[in-house]
């Protein structure tokens, strides 16, 4: 049991470190190092612009999407080498946020189902950050139940005509391409009538509208499709096989290994270490200490769980299901920590001005943003179902709509 690199890993790390040392955009280091709790902003520039420049430089040096084959823009690195790269990239990794959906989900799907011509054309540009991709899955009528989606694609000659609406699309407003799942046959049960495509987001009839979120920010979009034309050669997988294709997209969870989810704990520990209350430092209060200790062991538990997964990768094994717990644990933690940090400030805890104590309202912002952490990318409840069914082997829920033609499924509760 040790934390040491193998000789090959150490050599790879040294090479990566040297390249980053020589090429990283150091002018942003201080700003990126600041805690952002998952929300990255640069003072004077757009994260997408700075990110594109960094991604391009990485691609020129052979470090973009490094675990992809060389012919598609990568360097054919092993999974453990990708983790080592992420560790070395450190705070600059935050600049890659706009590309993560493309790299982690869209790219692998194109790689698995696209034609050779498409792969050679689209993937290198995705890898180098020249093109940004988004994922068009969720709909107003299908969030957790994504197979309940209603966006229609109808065949007309060599093209498909798409009408409908997607929602919660991160980055749609700056994306060049999108991975789109549609319903092509409403007369068969819901999982059987789906088909996957990719499309140019500048196609006629695509309209992107930002969503104003509960926390006041605008990070997600609605995307409307009105008679959008997609050529049949942009179909991924067979007609009616979209559900299986989407599973490939969603199962590409390896990308999450080694990337650290924000828990809010380091910020909370620092806050309690410095906050003076009427009874002394917050961290000297027994109730606060007890809560801090419980959060501390959750944070360290997640850290060492990811180390166990990295160790599996290092041995060339497929990591086990342990890593599925990350978002489930950290989402609730962020919410609980924010609530308690505000509680510790008493009545003034609700104030958010920059001149207020407590780090310019970072916990208040965390409070308002944290509900999305428990919903986006799989709700807490869906994640528990996944653990129960795929890890513990419990039976699937009884699905009343499983064998019913999609157009016979009720659409209203009452």
């Amino acid at each position, binding site marked *: *049991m*040790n934390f040491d690199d193998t000789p090959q890993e150490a050599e790879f790390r040294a090479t990566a470190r040297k390249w980053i040392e020589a090429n990283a955009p150091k002018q942003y280091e201080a700003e990126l190092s600041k805690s952002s709790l998952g929300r990255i902003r640069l003072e004077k520039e757009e994260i997408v612009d700075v990110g594109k420049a960094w991604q391009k430089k990485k691609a020129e040096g052979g470090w973009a999407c490094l675990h992809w084959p060389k012919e598609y823009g990568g360097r054919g690195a092993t999974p453990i080498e990708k983790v080592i790269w992420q560790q070395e990239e450190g705070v600059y990794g935050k600049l890659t946020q706009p590309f993560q959906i493309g790299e982690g989900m869209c790219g692998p799907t194109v790689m698995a189902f696209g034609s050779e011509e498409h792969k050679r054309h689209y993937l290198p540009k995705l890898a180098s950050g020249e093109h940004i991709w988004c994922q068009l899955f969720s709909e107003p009528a299908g969030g957790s139940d994504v197979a309940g989606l209603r966006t229609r694609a109808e065949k007309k000659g060599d093209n498909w005509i798409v009408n409908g609406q997607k929602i919660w699309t991160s980055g749609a407003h700056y994306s060049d391409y999108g991975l789109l799942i549609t319903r092509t046959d409403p007369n068969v049960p819901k999982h059987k009538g789906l088909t996957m495509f990719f499309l140019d987001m500048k196609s006629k009839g695509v309209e992107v509208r930002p969503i104003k979120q509960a926390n006041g920010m605008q990070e997600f979009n609605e995307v409307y499709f009105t008679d959008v034309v997609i050529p049949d050669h942009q179909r991924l997988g067979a007609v009616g096989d979209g559900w299986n294709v989407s599973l490939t997209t969603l199962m590409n969870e390896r990308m999450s290994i080694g990337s650290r989810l924000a828990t809010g704990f380091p910020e909370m520990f620092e806050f309690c270490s410095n906050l003076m209350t009427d009874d002394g430092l917050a961290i000297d209060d027994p109730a606060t200490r007890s809560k801090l200790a419980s959060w501390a062991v959750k944070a360290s538990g997640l850290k060492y769980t990811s180390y166990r997964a990295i160790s599996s990768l290092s041995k060339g094994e497929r990591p086990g299901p342990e890593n599925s717990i990350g978002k489930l644990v950290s989402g609730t933690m962020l919410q609980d920590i924010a609530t308690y940090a505000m509680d510790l400030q008493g009545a003034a805890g609700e104030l958010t001005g920059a001149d207020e104590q407590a780090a310019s309202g970072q916990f208040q912002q965390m409070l308002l943003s944290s509900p999305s952490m428990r919903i986006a990318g799989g709700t807490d409840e869906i994640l528990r179902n996944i653990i*129960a069914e795929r890890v513990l082997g419990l*039976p699937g829920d009884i699905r009343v709509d499983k064998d019913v033609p999609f157009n016979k499924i009720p659409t209203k509760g009452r």
Partner: protein
Amino acid sequence: MNFDFSDEQKQMRDEARKFLAEKCPPKAVREVLDGKAPYDKALWQGLAEMGFLGVAIPEAFGGAGAGHLELCVIAEEMGRANAPVPFSSTVYLAAEALLLAGTDAQKQKWLPKIASGEAIGTLALFEGKGNPSPKAIKLQASGGTLTGVKKPVPDGAIADFAVVAARTGSTGRDADISLFLVDLKAGGVEAKSLTNVDPTRGQAELTFKNAKAEPLGAAGDGWSILTQVLDRAAVLLAFEQVGGSDRALEMGRDYALDRIAFGRPIGSFQAVKHILADMYVSATLARSNCYYGAWALSTNASELPEAAAAARISATQAFQHCSKNNIQVHGGMGFTWEFDCHMYYRRANTTALTLGSLSYWEDQLIDRMRKKNAA
């Protein structure tokens, strides 16, 4: 990075699991639970023959000379089997205190007997209510004898010797405390069994009346040695707790697959699934914290105090969480004497206290993190 046990260590875990499945089925645990025996003597001898009692004891002192990582994997299996033997008191507390502070002669006297199953040892620390604290130690040492009362002492009624924390000064500092070795069979010590929540791990009151004692470690070093012993024991006991958590989770999962209600397995209801998923989460977090503790223990790293406290807290929470929800998943049957759920519930809630309570260790963790941050 290889943050995992080696193939040899995993093989040892498999051997221990197989051995305990055969020699320590729930039926054997119940013999002790029902008061038919104070501990399972045959199992204790079997553990000695397998080399498990002395796995971390050097060969020079009659052990297998393996190490603490090997002891961690054995500990996990002891917890999984709910073994009714004085393993934690003898191996994690008494043997570790001897290894840390004993003279060669003291090690030579007791360690080979621990490894061979001839001697049961324990640590006599507590004196009534409260958590580990030098202030709480009143038992007096004078002229090579001890006088005072210790309780609860784990496995105190069946132990052959004890490491005893005693007061040798009155300055109000940690240096007032020294450790002593006492042969409990040599007279001067009266042992009384106490009733407790988990009869498969007995507790006793030991009354020392001018009992002959020899110093263990230098005078005044008692508290510092004890702190190290408790940290080591915290990691090892945490592995027992993780083993117990996993077993409780398995029992709940199996029952949810088998039990039919409302025309379907109860494990197909999300209300039940989510309970089990949360048990998996807490058991996984605990296991990962324990691995870090095992690394720190086996390398004697400066991170051990923090790692031990984290492992202890996480594993205590996980075992309590898993054992109580195992009963919940079983419904009414889980509340019967006949089903084994309560044995794990009992063990979870006694191991939660035996080295000091959860709140004590939470306090320790925060103190240790602050110390590290300040440094």
